[in-house]
């Protein structure tokens, strides 16, 4: 007893109580007491289920672990808290929510098995998940799970929440204990399935919503640590989809950092203040492996203002997927030419996105009428289809959280309705599925499109008098969706569509051309390995056929050229890409259709590739044309990146004064983007650069990285203009703080060292230059980080500095090696590769072979 503080301050009563546990008794009595405590009687029965123990409580429901007596199956049973005391409203709500949950069918949501009535009380029977909570799983028994395991699991969680959202169900109590992770073992390998539980606090958006106090009952029902700032305001308003997104952000932060982003251990007031006012501590600084991209994603989800967050869970999931694939993420601040890169990665179908989404669906409906009006039966089908879509649209409520979500709800409803109401008209149902699928495609929601388009093709194949081209169209859209998710089925589907059309139509025909174009795209996007040669043949045939049918200047021709150009970029055949983009642009210029948004997209691709191959004068013309067009279509806030590109192009052309004017505008745009008040007086680029450095220590974490790269790039422009002292002064100002502001800004730090090397070399100190470069190489030599290009370039710089033509000490073998490495990572057409080749050729001319 002495060990456990049966001290003087303990009342005798407590000592007596402790005696009940048998610690002081003979024959290990305590062990028996604890053993017996583990054997608990069933709590009761509900229908054929024996309730074994309570396993949790949500806002309104109690969950029990139960056993179905007839087959011993374990289930979870949920009943309303408050039982008979529950108000009629609460009961109605519980029942309505049970129906909503019963309608959810997703592999990552605990499945509803049955709804039973128990003594006049509603009870829901659900799948029992034998897993560990997300928190326990993420810690993996003391060690942090690798990011490569956490993020894909989290994407599954997002998919589940999104599945509920588009059906109008908001979870409202997302927290790690509501996500159980089950482990499947196959031999040595393990896979993990997260399951979202407890929609007990869920709010159903459709129908006549109850006043908020019906669920909040005058107190906060969610779990504070995962509550969004807006939920903690005085009015205790019910959480919406954006609060779920915030909670996902908290959970992801916690899964990676092992701690809540806020101070939640203190008093209620401290917790609320922390959630409402304090920026969480940065992750990339403290958690190994968390990159700036990933951190930016989490911080975007954690934005205090709901409008700054992702506007749908799907957008969050999409960014996480981009992160996993190594693609640029939307949360991350743009760097130079980032936007251009982003845009040229898009595919031609996206010009539809510019349209209002509602107009899109309406247009589809109208298009169906027009397209099929030539036949009476077809007209009937088209009428059914368009009426159906019009009705679904009319039923939509436009005031939900973001237009995107609203449309998705409409689409989900349309799918469900089609299944129920159009079963007697399979052709109309197929048309609706095609319309839904194509709309999802135009929103890049390929995975949502696939099941609808699959259904459409299946239905069409069962029709006795099938219109083969309708099937070909459906297959084309389906193939496009599969291509976009890199599913190898794409090729086979597009081949089938092409075969159908070749059979139906006489060549040349624009519909055959379309299938050729889509097949080419499927082949170029194939991953193991890409079928470049086959894709090239298809593109060439498609372009020729479009020429012959729609004419050389049709938009389809341009779209084909654009896609072909993008394939050349992927092949690192940049010069060929430039040529194809130019041809695409010419189609618009010849017909004076420069206002077409797709023209802007083609210009972006053209500009980016001109920059890569070093055709700076032409690029400057293109950028000058782009700036006003982008300003008109995307607004001032998107101009910044283009201005950086323009300034850098001017530097390449040696027009340093003109470049500085543009740099000043670019800095101003950057201040704008950072929400820093733009300095009022007319200041030059150098002064603005200094001002930006002043702001660095206090800058929001997601802005520091981009700000640093902007300053560093500006310093390099000083080097190009031989203003070495100025460049050095900038580097010196960055030097003391950079590790603290952006510890993982590896490339920026390497570039600073590279700049110092250039300065040292220009100042006649190649030895010092070598030292700087060696340090830069050490930095990028970080295992697991894809810095191949930077490493190759630094090696090249080192080799060039080591070659001294004045003393004829040129190591040609080394130079050739670095050239080959550059050709490998940058491609032969890249300006860096080409300039290196030219340098070696020049040295060979100057230095006779020994």
């Amino acid at each position, binding site marked *: 007893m002495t060990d456990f503080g049966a001290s003087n301050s303990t009342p005798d009563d407590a000592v007596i109580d402790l005696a009940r546990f048998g*610690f002081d008794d003979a024959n290990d009595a305590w*062990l028996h007491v604890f053993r017996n405590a583990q054997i608990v009687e069933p709590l009761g029965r509900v229908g054929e289920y024996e309730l074994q123990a*309570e396993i949790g409580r949500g806002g309104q429901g109690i969950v029990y672990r139960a056993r179905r007596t007839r087959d011993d199956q374990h289930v979870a049973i949920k009943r309303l808290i408050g039982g008979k005391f529950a108000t009629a409203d609460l009961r109605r709500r519980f029942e309505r929510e049970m129906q909503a949950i019963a309608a959810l069918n997703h592999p990552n949501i605990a499945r509803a098995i049955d709804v039973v009535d128990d003594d006049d009380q509603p009870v829901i029977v659900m799948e029992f998940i034998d897993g560990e909570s997300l928190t326990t799983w993420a810690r993996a028994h003391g060690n942090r799970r690798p990011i490569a395991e956490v993020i894909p699991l989290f994407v599954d969680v997002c998919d589940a929440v999104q599945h509920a959202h588009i059906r109008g169900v908001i979870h409202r109590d997302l927290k790690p204990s509501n996500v159980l992770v089950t482990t499947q073992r196959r031999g040595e390998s393990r896979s993990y399935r997260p399951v979202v539980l407890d929609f007990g606090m869920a709010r159903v958006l459709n129908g006549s919503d109850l006043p908020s106090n019906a669920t909040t009952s005058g107190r906060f029902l969610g779990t504070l640590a995962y509550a969004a700032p807006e939920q903690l305001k005085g009015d205790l308003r019910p959480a919406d989809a954006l609060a779920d997104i915030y909670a996902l952000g908290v959970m992801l932060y916690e899964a990676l950092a092992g701690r809540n982003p806020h101070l939640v251990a203190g008093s209620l007031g401290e917790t609320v203040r922390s959630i409402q006012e304090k920026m969480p501590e940065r992750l990339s600084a403290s958690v190994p492996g968390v990159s700036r991209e990933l951190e930016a994603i989490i911080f975007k989800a954690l934005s205090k203002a709901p409008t700054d967050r992702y506007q749908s869970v799907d957008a969050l999931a999409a960014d996480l997927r981009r992160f996993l694939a190594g693609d640029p993420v939307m949360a991350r601040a743009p760097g130079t030419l980032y936007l251009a890169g982003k845009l040229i990665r898009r595919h031609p179908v996206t010009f539809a996105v510019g349209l209002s989404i509602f107009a899109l669906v309406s247009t589809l409906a109208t298009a169906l009428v027009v397209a099929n009006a030539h036949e009476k039966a077809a007209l009937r089908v088209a009428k059914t289809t368009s009426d159906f879509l019009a009705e679904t649209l009319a039923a939509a409520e436009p005031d939900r959280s973001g237009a995107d979500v609203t449309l998705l709800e409409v689409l989900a409803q349309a799918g469900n309705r089609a299944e129920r109401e159009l079963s007697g008209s399979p052709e109309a149902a197929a048309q609706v599925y095609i319309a839904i699928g194509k709309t999802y495609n135009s929103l890049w929601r390929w995975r949502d499109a696939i099941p609808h388009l699959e259904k459409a093709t299946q239905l069409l194949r069962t029709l006795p008098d099938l219109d083969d081209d309708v099937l070909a169209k459906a297959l084309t859209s389906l193939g496009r969706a599969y291509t976009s998710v890199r599913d190898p089925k794409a090729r086979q589907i597009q081949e089938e569509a092409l075969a159908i059309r070749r059979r139906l139509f006489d060549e040349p025909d624009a519909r055959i051309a379309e299938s050729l174009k889509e097949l080419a795209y499927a082949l170029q996007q194939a991953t193991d390995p890409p079928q470049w040669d086959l894709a090239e043949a298809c593109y060439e045939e498609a372009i020729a056929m479009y020429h012959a049918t729609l004419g050389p200047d049709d938009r389809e021709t341009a779209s084909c050229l654009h896609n072909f150009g993008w394939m050349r970029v992927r092949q690192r055949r940049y010069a060929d890409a430039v040529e194809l983009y130019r041809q695409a642009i010419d189609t618009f210029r010849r017909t004076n259709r420069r206002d077409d948004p797709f023209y802007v997209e083609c210009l972006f691709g053209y500009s980016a590739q001109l920059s890569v191959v070093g055709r700076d004068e032409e690029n400057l013309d293109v950028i000058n044309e782009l700036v006003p067009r982008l300003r008109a279509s995307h607004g001032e806030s998107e101009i910044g990146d283009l201005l950086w590109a323009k300034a850098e192009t001017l530097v390449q052309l040696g027009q340093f004064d003109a470049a500085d004017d543009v740099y000043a505008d670019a800095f101003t745009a950057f201040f704008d983007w950072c929400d820093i008040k733009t300095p009022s007086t007319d200041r030059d680029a150098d002064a603005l650069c200094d001002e930006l450095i002043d702001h660095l220590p206090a800058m929001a974490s997601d802005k520091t990285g981009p700000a640093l790269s902007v300053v560093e790039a500006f310093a390099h422009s000083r080097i190009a203009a031989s203003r070495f002292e100025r460049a050095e002064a900038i580097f010196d100002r960055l030097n003391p703080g950079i590790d603290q502001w952006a510890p993982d800004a590896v490339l920026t730090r390497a570039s600073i060292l590279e700049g110092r090397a250039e300065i040292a070399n220009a100042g006649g100190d190649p030895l010092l230059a070598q030292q700087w470069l060696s340090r830069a190489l050490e930095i990028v030599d970080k295992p697991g980080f894809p810095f191949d290009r930077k490493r190759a370039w630094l090696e090249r710089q080192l080799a060039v500095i080591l070659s001294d033509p004045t003393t004829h000490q040129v190591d040609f073998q080394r130079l050739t090696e670095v050239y080959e490495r550059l050709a490998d990572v940058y491609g032969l057409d890249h300006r860096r590769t080409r300039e290196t080749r030219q340098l070696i050729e020049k040295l060979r001319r100057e230095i006779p072979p020994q």
Partner: protein
Amino acid sequence: MNPDTTRASLLLRMRDPDDHRAWHDFDAAYGELIVRYCRARGLQLSDAEDVRQLVMLSLSKSMPRFEYRPEIGRFRDYLRRTVRNAITRYMQRHNNDEIGIDTIALESMSVGDDAMDAEWDRQWTQLHCRTALRSLRRESDPRHVDVFERLLNGDSIQCAAESFGMSPESVRKIKQRAKQRLQALIARQLRQEDGLD
């Protein structure tokens, strides 16, 4: 009791009706005890859950005035009386639409007035055992927990030692440490329950 102690006890925190975390913690800690006790007294589960709600309502009224006075009884007994009272009222008014429950007058509460409620004490003891076991499992070396589970399930020291390839002496040590740890955990739980920690 000093209300300024940095780590206020659950009971102290429950005096603030707005400290939802405290109320949640309390319900998580004692809800099952109330339900199991009611079931043992013959109530249906749904009735037991209703009583649990009534008890919470009752406590929410009485806790702001609650003052711990060791000389008049422990919280365990106070809670038992509240529950028993709730059961009585619930059964009496079962069919009324307006179900209410009076709070036990604190001043009338004293130890020894009622006969020992053996079932309550049994359930209470078991609840504390399960809580302590959960803590032990969570905080201890998983291998030691595995060994201890075998002992808990009735294996002899010899048998457990053979299964895990350990010496009986090591198993004995694990058992001894588990006992000490459980004793400390229970002592802490009891002190916290009575607002002494």
